[in-house]
């Protein structure tokens, strides 16, 4: 079963699955807590509200979309059982692989892969990763693969650290914020999720236009939707995963999805979801 789906359709799909009657009592007897990392764009309040309404209607129970400022907070909530499921970054998943179960992985351009981009302010003359030495660098989140880990790895290869390599660096706790920081000149370079940068080029071209890519990483595993290992077999969670895939397939081609999403760009990224 390989339905076409976008990352956002997955969100809608979690709600579309008729899992209300089989959700486990553990963690969410009354409702369903779904965690979102800052990978979900901070300023997409409208979409968030629509997702919330949609999931609530589909699951026939209150759906709480939980957002936190940092990846770490979502990971901690997930591990402590405060969330039933979450869309997290691949780095925390790898870190806590023994405690988290994979429900689904969104496909980006038909593959469950994405890249890290290192960007610079458009006025900067840097052409490669090494050219950003001595700049002020904006990281996204210490638990973000694309927003921190890859750049740290690149520096480790060069046997250096951010403190030595960059003139200064700071965390913005959001990929969009990295673009803002680099675009405004607060930082001259930044580490960002390639998926976010690509989406932003169409959603906020004025902002993205002030930045330029100087480095693209190798392909990495896409941020997954996970659930605590302890409740992985709960029917509700399993059904959520299946429902997400099934509904995502349908909704990607339905008028309803067109109406709810209203952002065709996301369907351009339609790909495959593999059930775990």
């Amino acid at each position, binding site marked *: 079963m390989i339905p076409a789906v976008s990352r956002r359709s997955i969100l809608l799909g979690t709600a579309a699955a008729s899992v209300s009657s089989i959700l486990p009592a553990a963690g969410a007897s009354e409702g369903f807590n779904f965690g979102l990392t800052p990978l979900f764009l901070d300023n997409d309040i409208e979409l968030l509200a629509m997702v919330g309404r949609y999931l609530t209607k589909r699951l026939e129970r209150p759906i709480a979309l939980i957002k936190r400022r940092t990846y770490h907070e979502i990971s901690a909530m997930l591990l402590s059982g405060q969330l039933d499921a979450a869309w997290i970054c691949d780095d925390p998943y790898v870190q806590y692989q023994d405690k988290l179960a994979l429900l689904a992985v969104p496909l980006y351009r038909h593959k469950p892969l994405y890249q890290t981009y290192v960007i610079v302010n458009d006025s900067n003359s840097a052409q490669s990763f090494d050219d950003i030495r001595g700049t002020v660098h*904006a990281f996204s989140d210490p638990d973000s693969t694309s927003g921190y880990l890859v750049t740290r790895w690149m520096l480790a290869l060069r046997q250096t650290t951010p403190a030595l390599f960059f003139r200064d660096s700071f965390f913005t706790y959001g990929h969009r914020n990295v673009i803002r*920081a680099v675009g405004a*000149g607060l930082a001259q370079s930044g580490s960002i999720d390639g998926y976010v940068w690509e989406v932003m080029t169409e959603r906020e071209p004025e902002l993205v236009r002030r930045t330029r890519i100087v480095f693209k990483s190798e392909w990495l595993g896409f941020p997954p939707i996970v659930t605590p290992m302890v409740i992985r077999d709960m029917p509700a969670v399993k059904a959520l995963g299946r429902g997400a895939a099934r509904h995502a397939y349908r909704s990607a081609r339905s008028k309803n999805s067109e109406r709810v999403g209203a952002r065709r760009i996301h369907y351009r990224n339609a790909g495959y979801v593999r059930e775990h």
Partner: protein
Amino acid sequence: MSRFPRLPAWPLTLKVPLLVAALMIAVAVIISQIVLTRLVKDQETNLTLLANAYLDGLSAAVLPAVIRGDVWETFDVLDRARGQYSGVEARYAIVELPDGSVLAASDPTSFPIHSPVPAELRSKFLNKDGLVINDDVGRAWLTRGLRAEGFSVGQILAEIDIASLLRIRSQVVLTLILVNGALAIAFSLIGYFAVKHMLQPLGVLSRYVERAREGRVEPIPERYRKKVASEFGQLFDRFNAMARAVSDRETLASHLAEQDKYAMLGRLASGMAHEVNNPLGGMMNAIDTIQSHSEDPEVLSKSLDFLKRGLAGIRNVVRAALVTYKGGSDTSLLTPTELDDLPFLVQHETGVRRLRLDWRNRVPEPLAIDGPAVRQITLNLLLNACAASPFGGAVAVEASRSDGALRIAVSDEGPGLPQDMAALLTSAGRIAAPSRESKGLGLWTTGNLIKRLNGVAAVERRETGTRIVVTLPVKTEAARHAA
């Protein structure tokens, strides 16, 4: 020396609007000054309030991030605050750490993180919380310290664009100038027309006074009286009362003059009777002589000559009287003979007072001038001179023509013509008739006649006596024929 006439000499219709305009301008300047001062003060107060509100919001939002030294959060707050505070157009805002370096600024390109705040820029800000306003460059600089638990953790420096406030000020100035200018012009025009309207009665009064000066003393008609303010109404009433008094007095004076004329006629008639009677005795004697010595041709001849001379004298006196009082002579012409008759009329006066009459008529030909009037003028002056001269004195009359004018000079050896009497002759304007008790009716009549003929009289006081010179214009020959 000013090219402009002194202010008091300007007409009221100009002075009042100018005064109104000047007052309006003065009031406008004062009010504008007050309004602008108040506006500037209010704007500064408002700016201070707005700036404080801006800084309150900003400092509250930014303080946690500053305490943590969080560059991004600080920038995020500053960046989001841009355009969020209506009335405060922040050009940039900087969060400065206690060591003088930039934690973050809304314009990170100009103020990179962890770089020192430029000294030149720093000098524009106060070292304590407050506001520095510079109207010349249209900027204000705000300083707000960030404190946590009594410790300074940094401060916010912000530059505010106050061009909009200055624009409002200049708009207010322009509005004040336009409105006040329009009001000054409007009030000046209203003042001009109002004063012009209010002063209309003065024009009427002036017209009637001028008529009175020309000899036509008329009261101001009632229709004008009804339309004017009470002050002018009273003025009109007084003028009319004066006009009536003058009119009554002139009527009386004319009446008196007529009486005087008849009195003089009586005196002349008695003088004439005397002049006629004198030769009559001799003539009767001559007739008696002729009757008794008719056979003596020599006696007859002498008696007849005597009779002839006597009759000729009587004829001269009678003819002069006829010409003077019966009229009938041409009023547009004066012949030399008409003047030469006058000594006969005063023969009695000169005879009684044994005066020497030096009569010099140098008018060679008839003149185009009112003959009877000239005879009357000359006769009156001559009689006046005879009356003024002492017993046995000399009276001189000289009539001559020069430069298109007839000049008659009458001199006497009297005590001198009093000032008020002389004024009756020499005054250019119309003079009220002397009262019944006072003398001078003859001179008043003479003065009026001289004015009627557009002539002038001059009174010269000499060592002994007075010389009165009357100059009367004579029409040219062409004008006379045309007339």
